[in-house]
């Protein structure tokens, strides 16, 4: 799911725009990109390294109660 570098700045800005963020605010985008690459992306990469074969996602809603 991830290469060495988690996401290019260009791809990041594309996603930011698609999410409705103000990409014209360059200093904020720089800060956000730095935060993402330093604090979020490494964790996502760590997730990629887990063996999740035959493991389903945890879901909070239990229909048997309704």
């Amino acid at each position: 799911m991830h290469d060495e570098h988690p996401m290019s700045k260009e791809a990041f800005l594309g996603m930011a725009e698609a999410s409705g963020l103000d990409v014209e605010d360059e200093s904020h985008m720089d800060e956000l990109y730095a935060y993402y690459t330093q604090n979020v992306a490494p964790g996502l990469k760590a997730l990629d390294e887990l063996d999740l074969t035959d493991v389903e996602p945890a879901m909070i809603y239990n229909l048997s109660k309704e």
Partner: protein
Amino acid sequence: MDATELCYLSAGQLSRLIVSKEISPVEVVEAHLARIEALEPTLNSFITLLPDQAMAAARQAEQEIQAGRYRGPLHGVPLGLKDLYYARGVRNTSGSRIFDDFVPEHDCTVAARFKEAGTILLGKLNLHQFAFGPTGENPDYGHMHNPWDPELISGGSSGGSGSAAAAGQCTLTMGTDTGGSIRIPSALCNLAGLKPTYGRLSRYGITALSWSLDHPGPMTRTVEDCALVMNALSGYDPNDPASANVPVPDFTSALTGDVRGLRVGVPKEYFEVPVDPQVEQTVRRAIDVLGEMGATITEVSWPAYHQAAPVSTAILMAEAAAYHSKLVRTHGSQIYPPVRTRIESGLFITAAEYLQAQRARTLFTRQSRDLFNEVDILVGPMEPITAHKIGALEVQVGETVMGSTPALTQYTRPFNLNGFPAITVPCGFSDNGLPIGLQLAGRPFDEETVLRAAHAYEQSTEWHNRRPPL
């Protein structure tokens, strides 16, 4: 009784005096309102105070008790709610001026059950904005301050709950815990703080941060008070899709003081991460005390512990971004920049990555359950450090310099991820007089064992009786 002494009575102690009519809820509330007025310039625990409403409720409680309509051990007891628990007719800011004028038209389930129990709501408590941070920072309503040293953080996100309970401004307070926000301020302020099992207490009417990680819970000066709150609030709520329809015990009956035969596990991984040497020494001494009381202490291995932070980060960030996505688009510039950045960064987690994290959570929870085949509770440090300076982004933890947020959450997040109950209790003080907490965690829906062990430890020591130098 001296007003300060009155403000430091536990709910258990107050209830015995109230039911015997030795003191009146009116006296109790008056004393607390005076203490709040005196200490707010130092602590800033509250966002909204309700003195008139509280006095009216106190007079009503007094009349009911005089007329023989005693509702139980929380009747007439002062309460503070973190300002994201909806209380009908009282503004609910969630820690942001954006919601300065938002007044809910209904009570959250917790507030409704507290009302039924006869507690007196004194006000709404300050919090890290949108409950998204572990330090108790809030530029909109002012930062929270630690009663043990007001230049230090109270912890977060339930920082006002921590300072108010520790300083005797409220007998009972409620926090919410998504990544540690009950246990962090409780440990840093010398309180008992319980994060119950996910689904045990209703989240209905509480501003969300991360639906699958949010836990409401009590922050009090004694373990008995946590149990009393659990008795009042537990029970299935059809308004909360995650509410568990499970039997509700009398939590106070678990407080036997006896831990003989209890199997206590100490994960070795807790001491493979940075921890202040004085904290480690204090916590290891507390574990020895449990052993001296008859518990069996065993070192256990919990390799999955190290996965908790990245997995819970992905879930927390993605869910918080989903919850607040409209807000960041419409009011982004009005959100405290560090909180805004955390919220917006979740927009870059893909659906596939979120589901990978939820799969990893399944595995983590399975491995956590396996661990409890060997032991009845897990114990260890609540925090690797004591409270740090307000505004510090990095902290010294033993020989390591690390970010404040990863440090403060390194022992808390595993139990948000698996949803298992966990409590902190005071277990000592640093050389510079700051509280240190001991974390005890148990099996899902086995709060009784967690409370029993915490209470037994608490009652065998004096740490919880110390008061901040205010």
